[in-house]
């Protein structure tokens, strides 16, 4: 490997929780580019909160009156993220519900993610959308209402949308849990292949052993316990 130690995602959580209750403490993890770390644990152990801390969306997962707060650091390719707003972090998110915007067509959902850079015109952005549709095996379905897609199709669009935004790291929050067993088996290798192709660090949260992407890189999280992992 030619990666320098700084490359990839370094997360160091001293304490993650509300004022009265620590959800996760003493967690270290490192994911090199192109690798997929699987984060496992029973529900309520704070898996999704760890993702929210990395993405900077703690405010939206802490429902109710007690906001969750992170003490620690999140570094991506040597850049400290902990104090940046989500939209400047370059961290992509995929949820178990595809969360396709219901008022946009499939293609518009994808176009929404394509960055507007100084050099790119609309035609180029559209071309990237078409290419993404092809990769998702959805050519010709760009004008469809997202609610008419099947569960597997929706999941593929959600992943392509996250990747089109050119994230430098990707977080998958139980991306397969709403699908039936056969569909999961089909979708897993497709998702893993696509994210590895991008050479970015990926964190996958699941409670299903079968979802594990890389047996070498699995971290079990238990409710409010010290956990150590340098993988």
């Amino acid at each position: 490997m030619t990666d320098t130690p700084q490359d990839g995602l370094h997360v160091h959580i001293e304490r993650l929780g509300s004022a009265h209750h620590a959800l996760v403490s003493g967690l270290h993890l490192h994911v090199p580019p192109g690798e997929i770390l699987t984060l496992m644990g029973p529900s309520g152990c704070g898996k999704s909160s760890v993702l929210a801390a990395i993405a900077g969306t703690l405010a939206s997962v802490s429902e109710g009156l007690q906001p969750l707060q992170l003490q620690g650091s999140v570094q991506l390719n040597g850049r400290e993220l902990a104090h940046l707003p989500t939209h400047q972090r370059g961290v992509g998110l995929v949820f178990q519900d595809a969360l396709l915007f219901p008022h946009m067509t499939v293609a518009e959902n994808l176009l929404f993610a394509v960055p507007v850079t100084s050099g790119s015109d609309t035609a180029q952005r559209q071309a990237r959308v078409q290419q993404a549709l092809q990769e998702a095996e959805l050519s010709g379905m760009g004008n469809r209402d997202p609610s008419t897609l099947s569960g597997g199709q929706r999941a593929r669009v959600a992943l392509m949308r996250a990747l089109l935004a050119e994230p430098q790291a990707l977080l998958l929050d139980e991306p397969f849990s709403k699908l039936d067993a056969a569909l999961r088996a089909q979708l897993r290798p497709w998702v893993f292949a696509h994210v590895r192709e991008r050479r970015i660090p990926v964190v996958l949260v699941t409670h299903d052993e079968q979802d594990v992407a890389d047996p070498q890189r699995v971290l079990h999280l238990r409710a409010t316990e010290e956990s150590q992992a340098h993988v």
Partner: protein
Amino acid sequence: MKLLGPLLLALIAAVPIGAALWAVGAQLLDAQAWHALWADPQTLRAWGMTMWTGLASTALVWFTLAHVLASGFIRQQLGRWLSRVPALLATPHAAMAIGLVLWLSPSGWALRLVSPGLTGFDAPPPWFTTQDPWGLGLILALWLKEVPFLLWVAATQMQREDLRRRWQAEYALAQTLGRTPAQAFAHIVWPQLAPRLRWPLLAVLAYGLTVVDMALIIGPATPPTLAVLAWQRLSDADLLTQSQGVVAAGWLTGTLLVACVVTGWLVGAAPSRRMLGHGKRLKLAAATRLPKAVFLSVWPSNGMWTTILTTYIAVWFALTVGSVSGVWPFPQVWPELWTLNAWQQVASSARTVWTTLGLGVASASVCLLWSVAWLELAPRRWQQAMQPWFLLPLVLPSVLWVVGLYSLALHTRLEGQWLGLSLAHAVMVLPYVLLALVPAYQAVDPRQAALVASLGHGRWVYLWRVKWPLLKRAIASAWAVGFAVSVAQYLPTLYVGAGRFATVTTEAVTLAAGAQRSLMSAYAALQMLLPIAAFALAGWLGRPRRFEKIAPMKATP
């Protein structure tokens, strides 16, 4: 610094409400006025009339609601019935009262249909069938207006996916245990539903006890209800009489608060875990244990609902025919002469219509902007804490509010001015707009904001391209609700406007006391058509996107 915006917003809305209350409070400490009020023999009788009409109409509404829900639920027609409710809700109170008058008055349609054949009348009899001294007309009008409102609130509960499934299952289970459908509804569904309707029921009670415009049209005159009496005193030229009106409004408010506490206790809270955990026997609140006959079908099951719908249609029809009627001697069933005179008169006093539209658009828009800003910026905790305060104008009698708003307008030299009047409307409109928006805002998935940010977009992109487009239906209908509330305002328009502004509502209520049947009907019809137009516009603006039609789906995974 981040909290400066919400702090300002809270002040903008809370200060006028607080100042208005403060102004009334100061005027209530007037011993002389209280003495004068008690010395007046009308006062106690008016209070009795208020209690009778308010409590009787509320109790009737509650029984009717239980009956309609039971028969609709058992026959599984509730969904179909409830789809008609918005049309009934859009009918303003004043228009409903005027429509009933057209039917029930001595020269009204009801008697015309049977005269002289059955009655032998050649002239309208000297009966008190509309402003009857027993308040029956007012009770009928309130009942007709409030049943659809409570049904609509009940519908929002019963159509919630989680509750609907659970209640259907429990209802089915109770029947497998040998209960009849009516028993299953009465013992299983109703006791769970009723406590959830407590606050809306209190709103119905508050409205019944304090309504002015409807009571002026169809309520008893000697004595009138306490709210009307207070209003008459307030609009008197004599200062002492005015202060009597203020304390009468204060007393009405006290009565309202006591009645609300008692009713709230009767309906009871939902059985909590704590109660069950302590081993106490679960006692159902009194008002959830209704007589069996309410749930059993005394009538053919959908009779009650059909009656209500039919009455609404009859009222709309009477307003329409009334507005184009010319000479119409008793006891002829149809007018001798049809004419558009009344509508031409309405058109020639276009200023009234423009004032109505202007006030409605201005107050609804201001309240919508404020509510959206508040819901976007204020922390959840603040929203919960401030909500009761912002809802006060909805709860307290309008006859009390106008006193406070008027003194406020006097202090700021805004009385009788367009700005002052539109602000007064905005105070009354705000709680409705806020209530219409809050459920939609609470239903927004917080992950969507996280997702948009993770795609590299900032807050404004999220709001303009995702959140607000998704909320556009709720936003548009909240605006229409605000507009409808503004159009229906009677007291603030007259009082804060210092009588200088006429709207279709003030015209309709004023004309109801006179003999110009066609003009009164035309204004009442217009009072109904304007909100309906606003709701139609909102429906069009909030229509969901039409996607391209697709060929039958291929079976791809």
